């Protein structure tokens, strides 16, 4: 369908305006430019009033005001309208013309107030007359049930994806839940038809069961068990879905937080921090150990210094003693005991008498005195010699012992330095990282991980429960079938029920597959349009609509970015989503956008102006824009797509305002 013409008679600020739209073809865009408040949005309202008897986009300033035109006084003469009318002329397939008119007659009441004159045959809320004419040959024929025809042409449920206020788009993903997105996808898929079919078929199936009750109480009993088991299986299935959703959500959250963590703390920050704390303890301990061993070395050196310095004389001293021993100088040849025994026995071993007083006795006695002295000295010398030997041994072991100590010191010193270098490197790597934030993120990740694990466990248990209930339901179903098969009537009912079941199963399967297909199609197109339209070419990488219809925008880093989009970026996302829905819907209706570039700055504005015509090839597009939106650059960018340009001329006076539409440039 293509809007060929929009005629307004006494509609709000328009006394009489006639807008001819760009014809189908390459230049299918029509631009209507007007200042804020001049009446652009009321053109959108005029279209919805004509089609649906509703003004969906009414500004608060117009709410409660009558739909008819109140012109400013002209020289004290007030204009009194006798009707308000909006007429749309459409071109359909095969160049067929359709004329849709909504008209509300007016009159002045006794008090001089203008009041509507409801049409006797009207089904509209405001009593307006509605007509839908279709050209047949040379004549125009009235379409039967015109309201239904309009609904088929553009169901009011999806009108928001064809006629919309661009300025409201930026709040779209703030206020819109997954449920609404799902509804939008659902609406454009025309699955309402299939849903109605499923509802009706299911209702009939229930009727067949109910009819069978009186015929077979046993069947009814089995049916009740079957219904209970089926309901339990369904409940378990729903709960399973919830757990799976919880699991997916927790997993998604975990992924997003991990990506954020990666952004603020590259590498394994936690491991680094743990190592830093370890080094903070280890380094002082190693330094303490080093100090201890250095003290030990000092003590060792102090204790060994005299010995080492006296090593040479000691060696000589010990050698002398050894030599004396070896030469027999020490100890003395005779022991004191031996000599004393000779003196006591008064007999020398040579047989000489050693009687007291004899010279022999005195001579031996003198030997005893000499031996006494030499014996003590030699014992002392031998002992000294042993001590000297021990000291010499220590001196000999000194270099080795010193080397051991030095090696230990060097090793410890090396470890201290190595640890200090590592600590410095870690400190540099960790830098200004907000460790509290890191810990908080890690803690949250851990919570989501636990939540995911819980959900996996619960889903597993629920899956078993569902399968068990489904198995029971299967057994009861067999019982129902057995009971029902007992008589002809039941057999007939059984066939009807089975047929309904088969139909329902197929319809449900188709519904599911189309919903998924459309969701993926909308997702792919939204992503393509968004990444094309967005001016930050290296910031965003993906747009997703998950099975729960949650829309996400992925940052290049992998984190979720929907919440951080600017107002203009959100508007571009919503514009992309709506354009995708429009494209996927298959409805061949014009796209009328009020203030499409209102919240968008200059460069992105041009980008959109250059790309939008590509996405909406073959579609009729009407842009209602302000002067600020329709800059010379934007106009140039759209030039090859625009077939008609209009400008709203607005005049405000005492008692009312008046707007008219003139060709752009006049």
């Amino acid at each position: 369908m293509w809007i060929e013409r929009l005629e307004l008679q006494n509609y709000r600020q328009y006394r009489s305006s006639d807008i001819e739209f760009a014809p189908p073809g390459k230049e299918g865009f029509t631009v209507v430019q007007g200042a804020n408040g001049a009446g652009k949005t009321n053109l959108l309202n005029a279209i919805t009033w004509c089609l649906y008897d509703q003004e969906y986009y009414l500004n608060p300033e117009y709410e409660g005001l009558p739909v008819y035109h109140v012109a400013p006084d002209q020289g004290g003469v007030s204009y009194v309208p006798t009707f308000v009318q909006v007429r749309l002329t459409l071109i359909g397939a095969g160049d067929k013309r359709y004329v849709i008119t909504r008209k509300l007659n007016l009159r002045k009441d006794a008090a001089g107030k203008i009041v509507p004159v409801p049409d006797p045959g009207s089904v509209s809320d405001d009593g307006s007359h509605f007509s839908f004419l279709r050209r047949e040959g040379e004549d125009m024929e009235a379409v039967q049930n015109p309201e239904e025809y309009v609904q088929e042409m553009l169901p009011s449920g999806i009108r928001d994806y064809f006629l919309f206020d661009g300025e409201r788009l930026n709040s779209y993903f703030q206020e819109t839940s997954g449920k609404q997105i799902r509804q939008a996808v659902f609406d454009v898929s025309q699955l309402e038809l299939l849903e109605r079919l499923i509802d009706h078929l299911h209702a009939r199936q229930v009727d067949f069961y109910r009819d069978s009750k009186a015929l077979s109480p046993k069947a009814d009993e089995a049916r009740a068990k079957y219904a209970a088991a089926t309901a339990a299986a369904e409940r378990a299935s729903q709960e399973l879905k919830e757990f799976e959703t919880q699991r997916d959500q927790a997993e998604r959250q975990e992924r997003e937080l991990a990506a954020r963590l990666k952004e603020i703390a590259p590498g394994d920050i936690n491991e680094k921090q743990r190592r830093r704390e370890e080094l903070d303890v280890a380094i002082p301990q190693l330094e303490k150990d080093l100090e201890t061993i250095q003290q030990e070395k000092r003590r060792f050196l102090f204790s060994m210094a005299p010995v080492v310095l006296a090593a040479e004389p000691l060696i000589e001293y010990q050698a002398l003693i050894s030599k004396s021993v070896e030469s027999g100088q020490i100890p003395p040849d005779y022991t004191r005991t031996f000599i004393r025994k000779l003196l006591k026995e008064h007999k020398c071993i040579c047989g000489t008498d050693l009687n007291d007083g004899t010279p022999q006795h005195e001579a031996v006695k003198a030997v005893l005195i000499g031996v006494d002295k030499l014996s003590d000295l030699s014992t002392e010398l031998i002992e000294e010699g042993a001590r000297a030997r021990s000291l010499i041994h220590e001196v000999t072991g000194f270099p080795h012992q010193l080397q051991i100590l030095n090696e230990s010191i060097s090793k410890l010193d090396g470890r201290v330095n190595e640890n200090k270098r590592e600590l410095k490197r870690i400190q540099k790597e960790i830098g200004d990282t907000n460790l509290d934030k890191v810990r908080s993120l890690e803690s949250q990740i851990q919570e989501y991980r636990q939540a995911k694990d819980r959900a996996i466990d619960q889903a597993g248990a629920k899956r078993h429960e569902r399968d068990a209930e489904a198995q029971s339901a299967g057994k009861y179903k067999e019982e129902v079938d057995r009971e029902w098969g007992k008589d002809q009537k039941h057999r007939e009912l059984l066939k009807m029920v089975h047929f309904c079941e088969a139909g329902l199963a197929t319809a449900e399967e188709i519904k599911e597959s189309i919903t998924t297909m459309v969701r993926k199609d909308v997702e792919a197109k939204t992503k393509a349009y968004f990444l094309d339209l967005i001016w930050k070419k290296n910031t965003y990488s993906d747009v997703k609509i998950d099975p729960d219809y949650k829309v996400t925008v992925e940052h290049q880093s992998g984190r979720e970015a929907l919440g951080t989009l600017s107002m203009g970026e959100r508007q571009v996302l919503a514009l992309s989503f709506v354009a995708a829905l429009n494209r996927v819907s298959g409805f061949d209706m014009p796209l009328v956008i009020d203030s499409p570039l209102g919240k968008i700055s200059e460069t992105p504005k041009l980008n959109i102006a250059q790309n939008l015509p590509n996405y909406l090839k073959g579609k009729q597009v009407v842009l209602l824009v302000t002067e600020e939106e329709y800059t010379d650059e934007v106009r140039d960018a759209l030039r090859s797509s625009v077939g008609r340009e209009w400008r709203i001329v607005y005049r405000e006076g005492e008692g009312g305002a008046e707007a008219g539409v003139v060709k752009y440039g006049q």
Partner: protein
Amino acid sequence: VVASEVNERIREAISRSDADPEVKEFLARMLGFELENLSKSTWRYMDLYEKEIARTVGQIEKQPEKAD
């Protein structure tokens, strides 16, 4: 009507499905009926469902006889 073009997606899915031909034909027929009566209340044509189900089941019943 434009909506019938959209409806084509559902019709195609029905024809591609693994269901019995009678079920497919029934669903396509009832879908067309839903499209025609989109704005009507449900109760107006619940009888039609029963009639169509009975008719289709009746046709299925007759098939083996024809084969005999």
